[in-house]
Every structure is written in structure tokens, then in C-alpha cells.
């Protein structure tokens, strides 16, 4: 079983464990758990030779007396939406099947510069569009707590890789909840940083004004360490922010005494599973015990979040996905005797899955002449109102706590026929995305059936450290701490 991030890094740095042995152990776990018909299917690609090469390089570096990085030998899984030089990157789509990027995403390069081992590329909903992993063109990953259930999405594969201890940490991307919701479903820690905190360079875009890369880990400390490394200004991403990056790991164990927690009434209404509600309330009580105060807050525009999100995100996606046209890379389908338009049509028809097509159509519609103001223009206005809700709330409280998702992991196939009910599973994560705020999901007590539940902690912009501190304070008390799914023990 693969241990926590800090544990492995310290052991490899101290020479107690060789990076190659860690890598071999991780690969062996992937072999045992991930492949085959009954496997978890968290990985779309595992570049075995590259993994061992990288691990040996870390060992050689240590042998040469060169100080090792903060992620020395730590196996980290990479969401397939992130470009990895020389390793197939598909973003879960048929249209990019076999595509090998000539460059690394900035976050991938930053992990490597700290001697992390990129263990493989993880399964995801196609182009990050989905909340269950079922929109992956390569088949859904399965939830290790109950393989008949969805791991959540879109970063489901990353969440599963960590939950089943095939990796200590993983990178995911979160557009409307794509890190937090699968973290909640799989009992892992997931962080969506402030918009602009982490470089998007090399992240295959879904909705550019919302997409943010963030970590999954087996514990809060591990997530905090990875976040400290990937965060910070990148000259290649004009939307990345110049704010200095604190050592988030130092926030683990920081006192949360006196912090004011706000509980949004709007999140505890119809549609919330009672077991999830009880588990989350217990976690909030736990934070009270740690010295926090709790009060209700109002986020009145919450009810517009789903509609607003699906206008803005689909609009941006319709444009972002235009580059997949069969001209330069990826799939090209040329109907015999067809012209250029026929090639475009056939390529995109065969290359994209149903949900992606649905969103491209929606997005194209809301940007169209005559509809722009009524949809896209209005959605931008509502987005501002949602952000103001948070501004007002943060005038009274230091963090906003809620369930991450309204239900525990649902069954595979349960919502595939009903896109709207699928969209509603992100109802608690969307508002912070629209407001660009950082949020952590940390495991709380499981349901009676043993399914994980996540507590979401939203903090003001650039104050990930406070979210980390609260998550760590709860983690220390959480009955879900270090819980490992039975099949992975």
C-alpha cells in the first residue's frame, strides 16, 4: 500500500526507501487493482518504463549527494486533461486517442522539479464534462468503496488512484466541482485552489474562466504540500496570479481557535441526503470542539448557480473545443467524396461523446446572435451576484462549511439518462467555482453503507491556508481519517 506524501518523501530523502522500490510498489498495486474487467480503471495510461526511469534518476540524484525535492519519489497520478510530454494525453476523449503532447503542463513540470514520480494518466469524464466518470470515452473508473458506484467526476480516476492507495497524491482539475465531488465520493482530500492560483498552462481547457488544477491526497498534509509546489505565477498563463504562495503545509496543525464558520442555509434544503447531512453536521460540531464558532449565513443566489454555470461553462467549452477539427492532430474522419465541412462534421461527430456534443450545442446556442444577452450576458451578471453573496458572507465568517455533494456516491448508470439530475450533484460545489474561491473537501464519517462523505470548506480568495488549517483540524478528529477501502487493504 502506498503511504502518505510526506511519509514517502521523507523516507526517500533520508535514504530509508529507494524511489525505485516505491515506484515498483505503486506499479504492482496498479497491476493488482486497476486492470482487467473487474479492475478500478483509474488509469488510462501507465508509462511503466518512464516511471522506473524517473525513479532511478531520483535514486541516482541522492546517491550523487544532490539534495532531493519535497516530493522525492512520491508517486503522483496525473489527470489525463494535463499534457505530459511523451505520454499519451486524451482528456478522456476519442478525438485525442493516441495523441502525444510535445510539452509538459506547468504543474507536471513543477512536480517533476521536486522529484515526484508521475505514475500514470488518470481516467476522467471526456474533456472534464461530467460528475461520474461515465462520460469517459474509455469506460468509467469505479469507486473502490463499492465498485458498482461512480467515483464521481470529472477527476474520478485521480480520486480512485489515491483512494485505493495506488498513488499518494494526484492532480485533478476542478471546473464546477470536478476535484471536490470525487474526493467526497472516494474519501480522499481534494483542494480546488483560488482561480488563478495554479497555472492552467497545459491543462486541456473545458471552461477557461473556471478551470483550476488542484491536488488529491490521502491526507490534508499531502494535499497541502502538493499545492505549495504547483501554486504560483506562471508566465505562460496570463490568468495566473502573482500573489506569493505560503507554505500550505505549515497550516496543517495551525490553531483554528476562534474561527467563525458559516453554514449556508441554502445548502441544507431539499435534495440533501439525510445521512450526508448528519455526517457533515457532526464534522461541523467537531470543528466547534476545536474552538470554532458556527453561525448561519445566507447565499441567496445559490439557486441560480446551476443555470449560470451551465451557460458560462458550455459557452466557453463550445469555443475551447473548436480546435479539435481533424486538421492538425487527433482523430480525422474523411468521408469519401466529402469536402472540408464533411470532414469537420464526421470527425467531430465520431470524436466527441454525447455529453460533449450536448454542451457544445448549448454553448453555441447561448453565444449566438440574438441570444447572447439573454443567456451569456445575463449569466455573467448572475455570476457577479453569486460572488457578492460570498463577499457579504465573508464579512461575517472566516469560512463557509457545507456538504461537498448532496448524496454519497451514486450507482453507475443511475443518472446517465438524466443529465439534469447529474448536473445537480454539483449544486454545492458550483457556487465557489463561479466565485473563483478556494475550497477543500475532506472526508467525514461514512454512511451506514460505508460510503464516504465529504465536508466542503470554502474560504476567501487566496486564503487556501485557512481551508487547509480547518481541514487538518477536522481530519485529526475525523472517524474517516486514514480509512482505506476494503478491496485496497
Amino acid at each position, binding site marked *: 500500500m502506498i503511504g502518505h506524501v510526506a511519509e514517502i518523501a521523507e523516507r526517500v530523502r533520508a535514504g530509508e526507501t529507494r524511489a525505485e522500490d516505491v515506484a515498483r510498489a505503486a506499479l504492482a498495486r496498479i497491476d493488482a487493482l486497476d486492470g482487467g474487467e473487474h479492475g478500478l480503471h483509474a488509469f488510462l495510461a501507465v508509462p511503466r518504463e518512464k516511471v522506473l526511469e524517473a525513479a532511478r534518476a531520483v535514486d541516482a540524484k541522492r546517491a550523487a549527494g544532490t539534495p532531493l525535492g519535497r516530493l522525492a519519489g512520491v508517486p503522483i497520478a496525473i489527470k489525463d486533461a494535463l499534457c505530459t510530454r511523451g505520454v499519451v494525453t486524451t482528456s478522456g476523449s476519442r478525438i485525442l486517442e493516441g495523441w502525444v503532447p510535445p510539452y509538459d503542463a506547468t504543474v507536471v513540470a513543477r512536480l517533476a522539479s521536486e522529484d515526484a514520480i508521475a505514475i500514470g494518466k488518470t481516467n476522467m469524464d471526456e474533456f472534464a464534462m461530467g460528475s461520474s466518470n461515465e462520460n469517459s470515452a474509455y469506460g468509467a473508473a469505479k469507486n473502490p468503496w463499492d465498485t458498482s458506484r461512480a467515483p464521481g467526476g470529472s477527476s474520478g480516476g485521480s480520486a480512485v488512484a489515491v483512494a485505493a492507495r495506488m498513488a499518494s497524491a494526484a492532480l485533478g482539475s476542478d471546473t464546477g466541482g470536478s476535484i471536490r465531488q470525487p474526493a467526497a465520493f472516494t474519501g480522499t482530500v481534494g483542494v480546488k485552489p483560488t482561480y488563478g492560483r495554479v497555472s492552467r*498552462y497545459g491543462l486541456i481547457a473545458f471552461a477557461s474562466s473556471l478551470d483550476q488544477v488542484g491536488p488529491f491526497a490521502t491526507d490534508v498534509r499531502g494535499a497541502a504540500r502538493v499545492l505549495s509546489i504547483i501554486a504560483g505565477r506562471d508566465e505562460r498563463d496570463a490568468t495566473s496570479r502573482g500573489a506569493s504562495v505560503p507554505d500550505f503545509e505549515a497550516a496543517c496543525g495551525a490553531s483554528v481557535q476562534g474561527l467563525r464558520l458559516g453554514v449556508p442555509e441554502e445548502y441544507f434544503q431539499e435534495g440533501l441526503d439525510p445521512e450526508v447531512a448528519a455526517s457533515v453536521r457532526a464534522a461541523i460540531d467537531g470543528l466547534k470542539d476545536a474552538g470554532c464558532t458556527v453561525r448561519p449565513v445566507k447565499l441567496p443566489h445559490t439557486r441560480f448557480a446551476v443555470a449560470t454555470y451551465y451557460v458560462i461553462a458550455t459557452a466557453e467549452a463550445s469555443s475551447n473545443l*473548436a480546435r479539435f477539427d481533424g486538421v492538425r492532430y487527433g482523430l480525422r474522419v474523411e468521408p469519401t467524396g466529402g469536402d472540408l465541412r464533411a470532414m469537420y462534421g464526421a470527425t467531430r461527430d465520431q470524436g466527441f461523446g454525447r455529453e460533449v456534443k450536448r454542451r457544445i450545442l448549448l454553448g453555441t446556442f447561448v*453565444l449566438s446572435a440574438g441570444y447572447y444577452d439573454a443567456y451569456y450576458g445575463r449569466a455573467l451578471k448572475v455570476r457577479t451576484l453569486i460572488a457578492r453573496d460570498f463577499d457579504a458572507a465573508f464579512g461575517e465568517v472566516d469560512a463557509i462549511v457545507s456538504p461537498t455533494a448532496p448524496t454519497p456516491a451514486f450507482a453507475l448508470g443511475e443518472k446517465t439518462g438524466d443529465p439534469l439530475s447529474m448536473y445537480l450533484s454539483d449544486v454545492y460545489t458550483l457556487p465557489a467555482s463561479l466565485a473563483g474561491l478556494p475550497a477543500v473537501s475532506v472526508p467525514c464519517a461514512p454512511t451506514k453503507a460505508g460510503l464516504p462523505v465529504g465536508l466542503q470548506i470554502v474560504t476567501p480568495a487566496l486564503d487556501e491556508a485557512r481551508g487547509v488549517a480547518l481541514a487538518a483540524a477536522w481530519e485529526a478528529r475525523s472517524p474517516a481519517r486514514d480509512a482505506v477501502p476494503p478491496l485496497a487493504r
Partner: protein
Amino acid sequence: MASYETVIGLEVHAQLLTRTKVFCACSTAFGAPPNTHVCPVCLGLPGALPVLNGDAVALAVRAALAVGCSIRAASRFARKNYFYPDLPKGYQISQFDEPFAEHGHVDLEAAGRHVRILRVHMEEDAGKNIHGRGGDSIVDLNRAGTPLVEIVSEPDLRSANEAAEYLRTLRDILLFLGVNDGNLEEGSFRCDANVSIRPVGEEKLGTRVELKNINSFRFVEKAIEHEAARQEAVLTAGGRITQETRGWDEKKGTTFSLRSKEEAQDYRYFPDPDLPPLAIDEVFVARVRAESPELPRDKRARFAAELHLTPYAAEVMTQHPRVAAFFEEASMLHGDAVRVANFVQSEVLRDVTTHGLTANLPISARQLADVLALVDAGKISGKQAKEVYAKLRGTGASAADVVAEAGMAVVSDAGAIEALVRRIVEANPRQAEQLKAGKATLFGFFVGQVMKETKGSASPQVVNDVLKRVLGL
């Protein structure tokens, strides 16, 4: 029968002369093998993001200021969405409802027309489709991502001739600013024209037709003239003008329909979420203004007022920024701008070839100033100056060396010339007597003899003086 006036507005796309592309670090150099100046960003690879090139902004602002625009403190980039193989991302990054500059003007001297500029915005160029035989096409993305400014005029032009003057004026402005290389053939300066007609006296604009991608000044004039005539014929015959986009067929000399208004694409512009709003503060604008080269009209005025050139000579000396720079440098080195201008006009310009921003001047300003200085010093004659110039062309040689090597040094030593003159007078006693007796035309005979003996190297002034003295004239 009603008489019509033509109403024209022009949209000019000009490539900015940055070393690198507008959203990546690839070179903008023209003529490289296809797809060699490319990277993940300008190839539109998944995950790549644009980062704005500050040099492009500076040049764009320089251009906008030169056409009198005000610069917006905040503007936005927007995506113009359409599919085409030369457009790698499936959208062009442009500016839409918030351009960086607006409300300018260009004054046309010959036409006496004040043309308002509606807006200037920045955008990226597309690549090039190269259509091969057998229906195959290839795409060269070297040009994709080259920075452009689009300068949009109000419909203030009233004839094809004015449109051509506007384009020449605008091209000269951009050329002298070092913003654009003015190459219509290479497509770095392109133009679309919106053309409509209306009865003289009518205020309301007629239905406009957009003429696309006309790539020479001559074609612009012809295309607009043809289009205005076509529209007049339609109206005269009782028809209506359809709003459409038309192209220019050079071979047939006619415009033809490309697409109707109904077929017009919906570009679904929206703010590009990958690029923060473009902030241009007053300090930046002031710096750009201070660094901007002199505009052609200002140069002309200065050459006339300060260097005393005739308006015509000032015009000729400002036909190209390199000619102007050559003229100014030579004037400064030599000191007499009028003589420099005369020599440039009579000799040098015959050998100058210009191609966009490049202009090949056959000699350096230093060489030219030295040639004229030799004339001033009486070392060579004006006629010899032209020969010296001819020998200097394309060489780095010094004027003095060329004169010495060719044995051209003028005989201006009065003593040596006097000895020669006396010998010639003695050899031609009859002519000398006749000249003394008043047959003035024979003076030239003696000058000619001296020049013949000296192979033209005698100073004419000295020859004149000596002849008069020796013959007692």
C-alpha cells in the same frame, strides 16, 4: 436622372513589425519553410495558452496615436469563432466591443478630406492555406499569430481616388512609424472596402457591399469604381442593392458575389477568458508617444520650413523612410540640404529600389556628402561628381580614393593651367585674335581645348579666370 455619390469606408489590416508573434515567442520572419515558426500556442495545441506580447501593444498604440485615436485605459480581447483550416484554435483572438483605441482621423492632403477613424483594434493573423493539385491543401501556420491592427474608417470617403489616397497616406504613416512594412504583395497590409451609393444630397446611407481582400492600390481603385458603377446600374434599372460580400476578379475586371447577408457567419464573439482585460495607462501612452518616429507629413513640413526644400523636393525626399533618413543624414554631414536634395533627385533616386520597408540606397550618406564636399572644394567638377557617384555605387570606397584612382583630381592649380592656356593660345593665334576682336563665341572654343587637354579635370572657374587674364579680356 438622379446622380449618385459613392460612399466608402475602409478596413485596413496591418501586420505589426514585432520580432515575435502576438501571443507566443515564435518568430514573425517572412519566408521561412512552412510550419517552422510554430509552437504549442500558435499551433493551437490542447492546453496551450496565449500571453500578450507587450511590444505588439506598443506598436499598436503608436499606430493608433498617429491616426489621432484616444486610447482606452481598459479594453478586452474577444474570440471570433469560426472554422477554417488556417485558424488553429477554431477562433481568432481579436477585439470586439471594447477595442483599445477609437475616435481618430486621417486628413487627405490632395483630396482635402477629413476621414474619421471609428476604431483601431488588435488581433492575431491566421495561417495560410496552400491549395495544391488534386484538391489537396496544406496549411502553413508560420503566419498564424502574427500581430495585426485593424483600422476601421467611418464611411467618409467619396471616390475610389480618395480611397486610394487614404490607403497611401495610411500606409506611409505606418511605414514611417516602423509599425508596418507596407508590403501589399506579401499581405502585410490588406484592405476591405465597404461601398454604397446614394443620390447626391441624400443623408441616409445606401445598402453597403463589402469588397474583400484587395491586394493593391490600383485594384482598390478599380474595384471600387466598378462596384459603384454596378450599383448605379442596378438602381437606375429600378433594382435594389443586396447587402453582401463581394470579391474582385482582376482578370475580368469585375466584382463578384462571395456570400449574401443571410449566409454571413455568426462569429459568436465573447470575451476571451484566457486573457485579462488589456490595461494601457497614461504613462505607457506617453512613453509610446515620446518614442514614436516623425510622421511623413511632419517630416515634409520640416524639410520645407527648416531645410528650405521646395514642396516638391520635400515630397520626393519623404517618399520612403529610408530615403528620408539618407537625405537627412547626408544633409547633416554636408550642410547644404538643397544641394543634397538636388543630387539625390537627379542621381541617386534613379538607382533606389524600395520594397516595403526595405530600400536599397546605392551609396551611403557619408559617401554622398564627401562627393559634394569635393565639388565644394573645387577638387572635382559637378560633372565629375556624377562620375564619382557612379563609381561609388555599391562599393564601400571613399569618394577621395575613387577620385585619386581615376586620376580625376581637378587641375585647379592656376599656375599649371596658365602654362597650358598660353600653349593653346600660341597654337591658335588666329582664333585668339578674333576673340580679342570681339568674337565672344570663341571663348568656349578655348575652354573646350583646355578641358580636352586635361580630360575634363580642370576647374572651369580657374580656366575662365586664367583665359580672361591671358587674353586681356
